[in-house]
């Protein structure tokens, strides 16, 4: 597992990948900060029923994390797509075969690769959080938002909590994507299933079944990213998601361990 972890990191440490990740984190920070801070209005002037940050909430210690957390909640599908493409690509390129001829312990190979990708994702997410804070500090004065409490211990703790929540969400989306790719072994089919399920199928089902939000993985991950919702508490979402992730990863690991690798 350690050797596969190091080998995967070699691929990720390439200049092109690092530049792409940094540019992505910067774009994320600029777009989410601009969208969240510039669209914020005073609490009294917001139309009824409209959610999102207000100028008052942004002035509180949690204001530093607002842009990052809001942006992170939209990255789930992107993470799903990236992990499906990465794992399915190993099958289509035949590179799992190449690696297994050198490192035949299949579970270790999967675990090492997954761990390296998650470490990389965590680092990119941390960079995005830091850049979001910097961008928020730069944009806040234009909206007369006070940043005095952002860099206090409370403010930084809120940012760390937002980062932790986003990281759990990314890990869950990543695990589901990787498991789907290993089970299906085809990028296009896995992407079709993943996107269709977490997008239209779950959301359309939610329209006629109230329980959907409490039991469907994509909707639970949305609730998690939002720090809980009116329908789903974090204390419900987290254990149910853990069951989903464990079942998906377990099924993928058993299948990968037993199946002939002929591609």
């Amino acid at each position, binding site marked *: 597992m350690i050797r596969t972890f190091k080998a995967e990191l070699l691929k990720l440490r390439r200049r092109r990948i690092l530049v792409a990740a940094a540019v992505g984190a910067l774009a994320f920070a600029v777009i989410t900060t601009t969208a969240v801070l510039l669209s914020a209005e005073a609490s009294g002037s917001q139309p009824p029923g409209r959610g999102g940050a207000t100028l008052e909430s942004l002035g509180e210690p949690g204001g530093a994390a607002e842009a990052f957390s809001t942006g992170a909640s939209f990255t789930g599908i992107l993470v799903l797509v990236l992990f499906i493409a990465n794992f399915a690509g190993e099958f289509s*390129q035949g590179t799992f075969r190449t690696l297994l001829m050198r490192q035949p312990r299949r579970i270790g190979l999967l675990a090492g690769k997954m761990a390296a990708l998650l470490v990389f994702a965590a680092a990119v997410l941390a960079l995005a959080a830091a850049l979001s804070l910097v961008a928020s500090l730069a944009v806040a004065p234009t909206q007369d938002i006070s940043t005095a409490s952002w860099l206090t211990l409370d403010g930084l703790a809120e940012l760390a909590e937002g980062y932790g929540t986003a990281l759990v969400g990314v890990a869950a989306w990543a695990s589901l994507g990787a498991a789907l790719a290993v089970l299906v072994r085809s990028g296009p089919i896995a992407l079709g299933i993943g996107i269709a399920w977490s997008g239209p199928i779950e959301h359309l089902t939610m329209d006629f079944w109230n329980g959907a939000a409490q039991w469907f993985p994509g909707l639970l991950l949305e609730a998690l990213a939002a720090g809980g919702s009116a329908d789903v508490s974090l204390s419900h979402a987290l254990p149910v998601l853990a069951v989903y992730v464990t079942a998906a990863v377990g099924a993928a690991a058993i299948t990968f361990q037993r199946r002939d690798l002929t591609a």
Partner: protein
Amino acid sequence: MPQPSPTISLDGLTKRYGSHVAVENLTIEVPAGVVAGFVGPNGSGKTTTMAMLLGLVAPTEGAGTVLGHPLDDPGSYLHRVGALIEGPAFYPGLTGAQNLAVIATAGGHDPAQVAELLELVGLASRGDDRFSGYSLGMKQRLGIAAALLGNPDLLILDEPTNGLDPAGVHEMRQLIGRLADGSRTVFVSSHVLAELEQVCNWLVVIDHGALVFHGPASELLARSTTTIVAVAERDADLARLEHLLSAAGHDSEVAGGELVITVNGTEPRRLAAEVNRTAGANGIVLVELTPTKTTLEDRYLAVVNGGDR
């Protein structure tokens, strides 16, 4: 003196996919240090057999050992095995050198070997180019370089000449010859024996998943017969010459306007002279008299086609 244990030993190895039998009851031994050609027509089960040796495919039945370790524990021997199977598979966005470094790291080998191996396979000047830009021949050579990581005791190469032009085939053959240094066993497959004939000293021939021949290449060749082909000015004379030669104790047969005389025990040139004398003495004018020796490829085709198993 005890014989060294074989590098590959298979006992009744079988692989079925539903009702399709890919490999059937394969029992072979490949001694240490030989270059073993694994030959059979396309779809005969060569790749499946190699995939079982590499732990990629689980046998349905049977057992075996590789480098003395059981087939069902590939982790115990794969660090001493280098392989190229089903074509070279690498990350297209990585350079040749980066690909080798990734595989070396995954296999626990020293990535410092990468430059040396690229040099060995003639890719030193292209090591920093992306794999996606390589020609097929370059990809195959990178595959060989990857197989050589860790200086393996056993090299398993699946159709390494596939898709190469004649110059590439020649180059690959020379490379395989260089890799077989006597201490390393090379197990190389092809559906064209002529590509391997010059480098193999051991042969395993399979067809439709079943073993047809295995042993020293010289043993297969020893089964071959040398013939002399005679063509007369008048076709009608061939039957008469056949009769005359038969009376002198030689086997021959008229086929397609030729008389094919089997060389049995006699030195071919002496027999040719005798045939010529006999023909001349009986007023038969020969316009062609050609000794022909069957090649290993001829023997292989005869064996695979069921003529001589």
